[in-house]
């Protein structure tokens, strides 16, 4: 058993604890800011079902597999599921939220550049999970 001094271990543990406190504090601060939905965000209802995504804009227009949004505006997604669990994911904008039947989850984003990005399902949902994909098209309304 240890008859020797343990001080290097305590110093080391102190450093690890300090690191964890720093990581936790930074994460807390970042998440707090990220979760704050802007007042003027437009709502898009996202519905996942085996194995495609449906989008409904505020004005009632519906899209399947493709989502058109305008650059520079904020959008709030209300995510539903019709059958099993899915996860709505636009990886390029770090948009990720599970679509769970019986629940409505929300997440928001504001596209900054014109272009197209992949939409995919990131929660296992069965046979065609691998191809439950879509396209986000960010457009400039003035163009």
């Amino acid at each position, binding site marked *: 058993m240890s008859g020797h001094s343990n001080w290097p271990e305590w110093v080391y543990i102190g450093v690890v604890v300090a690191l964890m406190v720093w990581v936790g504090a930074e994460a807390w601060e970042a998440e707090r800011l990220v979760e704050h939905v802007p007042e003027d965000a437009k709502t898009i209802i996202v519905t996942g079902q085996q194995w495609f995504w449906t989008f409904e804009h505020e004005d009632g227009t519906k899209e399947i597999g493709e989502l058109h949004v305008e650059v520079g505006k904020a959008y709030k997604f209300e995510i539903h599921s019709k059958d099993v669990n899915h996860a709505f994911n636009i990886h390029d904008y770090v948009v990720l*939220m599970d679509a769970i039947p019986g629940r409505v989850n929300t997440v928001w984003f504001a596209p900054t550049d014109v272009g197209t990005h992949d939409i995919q399902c990131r929660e296992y949902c069965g046979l065609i999970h691998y191809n439950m994909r879509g396209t986000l098209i960010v457009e400039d309304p003035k163009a």
Partner: protein
Amino acid sequence: MVLELQKPRPIWQIMFSTHHTDVGLLYLISSLAFLFLGGSLALAIRAELFLPGAQIIGDAMTFNRIFTVHGTTLIFLFIIPFASAVGNYYVPIMVRYKDMAYPKLNAIAFWMIPPAGALIWLGFADFTWYATPPYSIISAPGPAADMWIFGLKILGISSVLGAINFVVTILKCKHPDMSIGQVPLLAWSFLSSSLIILVAIPTFAAALLMLLTDRLGVSGFFNPAMGGDPIAYAHLFWFTFHPEVYVLVIPAIGMMYEIIPRFSRKPIYSYNSGVFAFVLLSIVGFSSWAHHMYATGMSFTEKTVFMVGTLAAVPASAMHVFNFVATMWNGRIKFSTPMMWAVGGIALFFSAGAGGVANAAMPLDFTTHDTYWVVGHFHLFVMGTIAFGSIGYLYYMFPYVTGRMYNETMGKVHFIMSFVGTVLVFFTQHVLGLYGMPRRIFDYPPIPEWIAMNQIATVGAMIIGVSMAIFLANMIYSSGKGKLANTEDPFGIGGKYYYPFEAKNPSH
């Protein structure tokens, strides 16, 4: 010290034995068989993902079944039974008792594993090792799904029986001259992990029954169409299976505590901090389960609580790493095969833990969750840490079990190839996750970065596959034809670094 009787016996004498080393041998052989079965499924998965499009697996359903059975097999039929094998061989000897506390219960706990393994393999379910509801309730094809549920049920009971046996053996059967503070750290690791099992498993046992009745349509616990909630299942599942992560890793750390001091020819740096870290891990392991669920729509407060609970486990794990490094410091280290595996395992444990901190930080988790990052992350634990510690320990106990030496060169080649392969597969998968590739997908779009990284990972997996073939050949050949081991000091370290007590319990 000889752990197994060298005199050849008919196989039925071992199968119907309740002696702890015989049951240990049964655990050992069955767990290794499942290691090779589950590992070959991994190679099939990697071969399929080498390029976009269907390669060797015909359809998505087969692929989904393969990764489900791969995970279930390696967690429940390799890692846990392998730890039980080591515990059966060593724990009674370490606490100086003639056998496990309940020898018949011990044999029963083992004999529940083959039927459970048969249910899982003959069923070949497709709903992931998480058995995700409501998919598993309304969509997953039977009878595979039901067979999986029954298989897991049996394995859960087997784990609980084994855990009771370890707790009683260590706490009640240890030699009266021995205080709990003198019990070796390997035995402490079994005490900690067994206590976690006893607290954690009943929750999942209940969830499994609810899943089964949901599938039968007589209840709707997790089925939203009947007013249930899939998130309830997520909580019940992870309340068992986050602590279960520590059930898997703690015995592997315990095995490293046997190997590192011996091959460094030094006493362990701090026995007390090892014990403290085991106990701390088994408590804080219960405070982090919902970090698997950040993206299910949890509130900011919930996420914060589980992030803090997760980060709280880091110092305890870091204490083990410190203890290993401080033990090796200034030691006269002999890099025999077991030591190479243990040191490699510690390096990968550190890498896995560092990646885990990134997952725990809430905003980063939304980048990594359910991508290949997570696959790489937990494989660094289950393969890089737990399998490395276990395989190292297998080499370490090999001369005591068989009375013969394994081939040292083949052991070292096995390690080097496995280490390189593990780094290639799982470090690459971390990066692949950052590029957004979801886990559990049969096919992927031809994105150049995804293709490149999948190919690196597949090459790494094939290197591991070849090294495992070398391992199998070494084990089979050496156990029959290897040169006789000097069981007083098989590794040529100097005898005083081994256990002083004569260790051979009588048969009964």
